[in-house]
């Protein structure tokens, strides 16, 4: 490895280093605030090194990783999301007694895993990144040990995730058996001549899709999502919903573009089926929920369905649409769970829909942020979510996916129902009953949390009103992907 390789890897290296520093700090000098600051600094520096790394990109670093503009873009997204989660976690864990420092180390490990996924160009790094991410998540989900439910959620995630990893490994093995290589690019080169995929390869690919589908929580691999979303501490839920899924989408997109997966009609139809089922199951089940975290869980299943519609629209517009939609989804989901997180404390999550009754009149700013986040999820203009949905529909129309687009529209309307329901409840009259033992002091939104929510709302409107800069960035990034 040359110096330039290390420069290209800087974002990952800095993240890894920060996690070690955090671990050592936890061992020698326990201080919650200090650890949170170090973590934030680490993530910020890692983000800044993206600019340095961009100077030497695109560049394969060992056969395992490729640091191109695509990887850097997604790494940036992941780092910013992790930073937001870190700050929200600080506010959340402050309300908790006990040892909280390891939490941040795990968060950094998970971030590292996610970034590895975004840069993976080889099945080994794919699996490595995935496991780094997953194993950290098992613990993060179950971190609040005073409560039974996080533990249950953690175990549920552990078992199902383990099973899906097994599928993934089997799939990789089959592909290796067929092509004799685990490098994405070389598999693609070997397949370049064939019109259809060899059957062994296809079976392998389907198995990989099973594993990936689990991480993305798309139907029919979605069973874990509501329980884990509900059980996990709110900031961790935000992390699972964004970083973990986003990294997987990044990998899937890169791999599918590289091997031109949709030349196989069977795969296309399978994916179309998954998209349709996810949209309908997600939205219809969300209608029935009276628990905000479960509602958002089902809604995120539906959103991954929308995302897959863009994915299915072949052509350059697809990569752009997926990336833009994902960015909007990141902002919105972080914002929504951020609100939940701000209102929650360990062991007492603000998850019942009644916790939000007349929030508009008791805490107008928090309710305002939640409202715009929900409107963005619903795809109403002036928000990033609208431009994202516009992009997806544009990609679909461009590829003449009329049926899928109409299904998407039908689902958008169903989705409106439950987003509006939450908004209505927030705007409803009647004071929220203050539960015994609950003091206003404990519910004070800290400056840091407020800043995160404000920044996310700002991004939401910025992307909704003037998306041109981000679109340009994505276009540059996307050219790199097609080029490799």
């Amino acid at each position, binding site marked *: 490895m040359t110096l330039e390789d290390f420069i290209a890897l800087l974002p990952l290296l800095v993240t890894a280093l920060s996690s070690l520093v955090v671990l050592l700090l936890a061992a020698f000098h326990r201080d919650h605030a200090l650890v949170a600051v170090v973590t934030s600094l680490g993530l910020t520096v890692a983000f800044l090194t993206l600019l340095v790394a961009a100077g030497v990109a695109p560049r394969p670093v060992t056969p395992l990783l490729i640091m191109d503009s695509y990887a850097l873009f997604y790494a940036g997204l992941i780092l910013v999301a992790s930073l937001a989660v870190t700050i929200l976690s600080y506010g959340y864990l402050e309300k908790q007694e006990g040892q909280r420092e390891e939490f941040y180390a795990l968060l950094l490990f998970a971030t590292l895993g996610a970034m590895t996924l975004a840069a993976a160009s080889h099945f080994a790094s794919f699996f490595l990144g995935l496991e780094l991410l997953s194993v950290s998540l098992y613990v993060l989900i179950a971190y609040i040990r005073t409560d039974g439910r996080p533990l249950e959620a953690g175990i549920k995630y552990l078992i199902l995730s383990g099973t899906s990893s097994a599928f993934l490994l089997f799939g990789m093995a089959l592909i290796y058996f067929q092509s004799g290589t685990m490098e994405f690019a070389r598999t693609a080169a070997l397949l370049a001549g064939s019109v259809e995929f060899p059957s062994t390869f296809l079976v392998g690919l389907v198995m990989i899709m099973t594993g990936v589908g689990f991480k993305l929580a798309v139907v029919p691999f979605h069973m874990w999502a509501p329980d884990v979303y509900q059980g996990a501490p709110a900031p961790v839920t935000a992390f699972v919903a964004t970083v973990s899924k986003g990294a997987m989408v990044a990998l899937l997109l890169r791999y599918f573009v590289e091997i031109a997966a949709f030349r196989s009609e069977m795969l296309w139809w399978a994916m179309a089926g998954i998209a349709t089922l996810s949209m309908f199951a997600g939205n219809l089940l969300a209608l029935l929920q009276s628990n905000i975290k479960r509602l958002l869980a089902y809604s995120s299943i539906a959103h991954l369905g929308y995302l897959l519609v863009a994915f299915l629209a072949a052509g350059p517009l697809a990569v752009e649409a997926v990336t833009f939609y994902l960015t909007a989804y990141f902002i919105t989901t972080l914002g929504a769970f951020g609100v939940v997180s701000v209102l929650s404390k360990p062991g007492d999550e603000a998850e019942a829909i009644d916790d939000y009754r007349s929030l508009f009149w008791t805490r107008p700013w928090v309710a305002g942020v939640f409202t715009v986040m929900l409107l963005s999820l619903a795809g109403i*203009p*002036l928000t990033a979510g609208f431009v994202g949905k516009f992009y997806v*529909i*544009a990609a679909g*129309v461009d590829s003449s996916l009329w049926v899928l687009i109409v299904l998407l529209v039908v689902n958008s309307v169903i989705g*409106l129902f439950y987003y509006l329901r939450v908004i209505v409840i927030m705007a409803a009259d009647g004071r929220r009953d203050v539960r015994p033992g609950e003091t206003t002091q404990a519910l004070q939104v800290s400056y840091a949390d407020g800043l995160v929510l404000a920044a996310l709302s700002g991004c939401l409107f910025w992307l909704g009103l003037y998306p041109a800069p981000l679109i340009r960035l994505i276009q540059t990034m996307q050219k790199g992907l097609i080029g490799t």
Partner: protein
Amino acid sequence: MILVWLIVLLLVAGLVAWLLDRHGSQWPRWIALGALAIDLILALILWAEREAHLSISNQGVWLADLSAPWIPRFGITFHLALDGLSLLLVLLTIFLGITAVVASWTEIRERTGFFYFNLLWVLAGVLGVFLAMDLFLFFVFWEVMLVPMYFLISVWGHEHRVYAAVKFFLFTQAGSLLMLIAMLGLTFIHAQQTGVVTFDYQQLLGTTMDQTVALWLMLGFFAAFAVKLPAVPFHAWLPDAHTEAPTGGSVILAGLLLKTGAYGLIRFAVPLFPAAAQAFAPVAMALGVVGILYGALLAFAQTDLKRLVAYSSVSHLGFVLLGIFSWNAIALEGAVMQMLAHGITTGALFILVGALQERLGTRDMRRMGGLWAILPRFGAITLVFAIASLGLPGSGNFIGEFLVLLGSYRVNVLMTLFAALGLVAAVIYSLALIQRTFHGSANESWTAPDLSTRYLVTLSAMIAVQVWLGLYPQPVLDAAGQTLQNLRGFGEVIAVVSKG
């Protein structure tokens, strides 16, 4: 720039009104009124300055025009422009906006800041809709109207407000999304032919395409506009939304939001797909006629005063639909006249009903009767607007309906015949309104103050406009005439080309 100011002023004033709420609820009211007053002056200046241009043939040249790049990736521009038709509707918007603010003056006592924020943002959205000449921008404004309106109904509305608000939102949103797909379809077809991706209205005009495709795309636009209009059978949201909304909301809904649907049909649905619209015209006209009769019938059957006015809107807007799809000069001028006149009349009726409800605490006509003795001013003014609404000569509504019928007669005699029955039906339900509420013996002993000066001034202004529209409609017809001729002429050229 003046076009941007019209909109931005309202947006900013809305935010300021919300923020200043904590310093007393008088602030938001005055800020809203002030902002709208400035807007009115700006719009009148626009009219005075450009009046000379209205009459001369200025095909393709706007009275005011502004364009800036916005999202270059999709060729989306921030393009606002104004012609005669837009000008009239902008004036109507600001005028009704002022009356809505005044009507809400005492009715809204809680969360006034947020109320006026929503009110001003709806109005800004409506202005945007009438001014946007980029399809994407049009869609954005189209949606901007929606969310604040939803809040107006769901927070300050009456008993079943949440149900009504959600129903309103879902109906309109479903229509909007179909329109969005149609817009994208049109853009991509245009791009395939010319290699230019654009959402600009004028560039998209004249895109030639397969007849079947054109019909589908036209239907996408029609879905959104028919829901807003509302055309039977897409009207189901309207009675609920109108009944439950606070007075200011009802005024804006009936006076303005319904007009955006009609405007969309005139500006977009027909000119963009002339041949398809022509093929579809009999169906649309039939829907219009059904709406006229069905709305009138149901209006007569109501016991709730607000619902009566709401259903009468379905009936009146049926004339607009009929006029638009007759697509000749007279019928179109009639449709525009009907849009303006209906905005004023129905707005006024909703203000009166709202004021009545504020005093009596009910909208149930069975509990009223004999109110004229207690509330003579109410009675007289309501009578004026009820008569205007039924289309008595001398009112703008008469001009509108008469011109529509005259125009549609040339296209389809049978439908015109049935539509004319609507005029008779209007007499029945309008007079029934007066009879059941103000005449006869009092069912309960109400005591309530009569209309205050504030209301009298507002309503007198509305009467004045109404009478002006009825007695001297020429300036209005002139203002709209050139625009309509341009749109129509364009449609005809295309129809010929695509047939050839």
